[in-house]
């Protein structure tokens, strides 16, 4: 994102068009996907902490929670594949 702002600002200062350069658009998309990954990884981290706290308290992890954690990991893999595909374009 900061990279995009920098580019746009520089272009404006130079009096060039601030319209999206195709490469910038791609980079922006990659950043967006990676940001989603960051958010998702944080959620996953929190869920892991919940699971650990339950374990420490002597409770078994609810099957629901285990499934959600696995789903987060899968979603992250998908997002990463998406980012890789964008880079390859």
């Amino acid at each position, binding site marked *: 994102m*900061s*990279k995009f702002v920098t580019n746009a600002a520089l272009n404006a200062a130079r009096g060039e068009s601030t319209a999206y350069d195709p490469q910038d658009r791609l*980079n922006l998309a*990659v*950043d967006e996907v*990676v*940001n989603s*990954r*960051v958010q*998702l*990884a944080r959620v*996953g*981290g929190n869920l892991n902490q919940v699971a650990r706290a339950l374990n420490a308290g002597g409770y078994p992890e609810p099957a629901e929670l285990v499934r959600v954690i696995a789903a987060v*990991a899968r979603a*992250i*893999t998908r997002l*990463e594949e998406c*980012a*890789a595909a964008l*880079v*390859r374009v």
Partner: protein
Amino acid sequence: MVPKIGKPGSNTLKVLQYLYGKERHSGSPHIDPHLVASWDGYAPDPGRQPDATLKQLANQLDLRVKQLGAQKPKTHVWHCSVRAAPTDRYLTDDEWAMIARRVLAAAGIAKEGDPDGCRWVAVRHADDHIHLVATKVRGDLTGPRLRGDARRVQNACRKIERELGLRRLATGDKTATRRPTQAEVHKAEQRGLPEPTREALKEAVRLAVIGARSDEEFLANLEVAGVMINPRRFPSGDLQGYSVALPGDVNASGDPVWYSGTKLGYSLGRVRSRLAAADPEATQPTEAVASPAGRTPTGSKAFHARRNAVPVVEHALVVLVEGDDESAMGQIDAVGEVLGSMAQTAVPGTSSRAQLLALTRVYERATRSHVRAANRDTWAMRSAARSILTSGYAVDREDGAAAVELISVLVAVVVVAASWHAARGNEQQAEAARATAQQLRQLYRSTARRPLEVLSARGRAVSSPQRERYAQAVQTVVPEAAGESAVQEWDALAATLAEAEAAGHDPVALLERARSRRELETADSVTAVMVWRVRRLANLPPVDGAKARKAVRPAQPAAAPGPVRSDPGRRRSR
């Protein structure tokens, strides 16, 4: 905890293949490779997740690099291993994960809480170390600021050691000489050499400086040591610099591998500032009390060279305590040359020679710090080193007594040097000096054993009224000694005092003089110290001197001042 940043690479997958694969080089096999941490905790781990592949992991690490396309840096892989000391306890994966985060934050790869930090993983495939692999493109597609990463990572490790209660390493100050590279170590192993060329050359150069009075003498010493020399000269013929190589150490095209003096830690400038005074014999101080009986003292040249070096080395104690930093550093530096000269004149093949060579090498670290050694006051010590060197091999039994006293004074000086360094925060230097003192003490014990035996046998033969008289003198003059229960040393002191009295000295006056010297605590009991001091002050002959052994003179080219040089090149090239 030793962090080691490797050469930057250009292939992420290859590094991962090595880390996850079977080991190729000698060393420990890779056991259960897996990730202990990654940039967001969700990197695929081919070691733990059955459907994850190395290719996937490499691709994820490389995402930002690929985004740059043709503008990607030439080398984009950052690699650093972090190894615990063998004495450290087992560290869990979680502990290693914490260490990885701290090290990467210190390096500048990924700061805590930075969403645009570089992508990285920490791979563990052995109990005692992890590997950190990162790609050097940040999320905002700029490069991380890595300048000075090695020093920052080292400092972070010092902190981690303290927090986790691990073995604490001495902090460096960038004054140590360069260690051999991994390639040099492997080459030495393959050729069956006991040590890498760089180490052998360092020692050859260090020893060649001792006693040299000019550039040319220094080069001649190197030549005697069997080292190939490539001097660089100005058109005037003056030396501009030099490099050395070991015979038989060649590169792929068969040319010798040259090491410049600077890279070995002995630039020509450093060598020149350490040249000995031109005329050592004229400046040799003596402080022995003239023998009233007018007897000429016996003993070999080697014996006297050692005995005369004692007061010179003793003077270093005064400088270390009272002098400014530069002079003190000069003395610490010159002590290394005395040690080196003793090492070179010890009879080849003996254990004492091996011990001396080893401790001289350890001590070398203590001679380098950010304090510039002032060499104006060290000519006496350098000249003493030179006379030890030119006086021929020391035959242990004959020169035992003189060597013993010299060693015991050296212990005192090196111990003071260790605390001098420690007080200035020179941790590595202080540790080197402490280790040297330890080894010197051992050497002292083995060297002193025989002369003490001979003397105490003589002491037991002294008549009892005479012994009684000496006992009283010792009681009044050196009460510290009287309190000790050192039977053998006491017998030796009685024999020494009897010998001195027979030569026309006053035992009480001698003891008083010996007592007035600084530093009674050195390597041994006060009584033993008194034995060696009285012998020197009364200029008594070597302990075994009655048998009039001839000094063994080693064969040497007439031009070379040094009698023996360690000869690594020649020995190894065959």
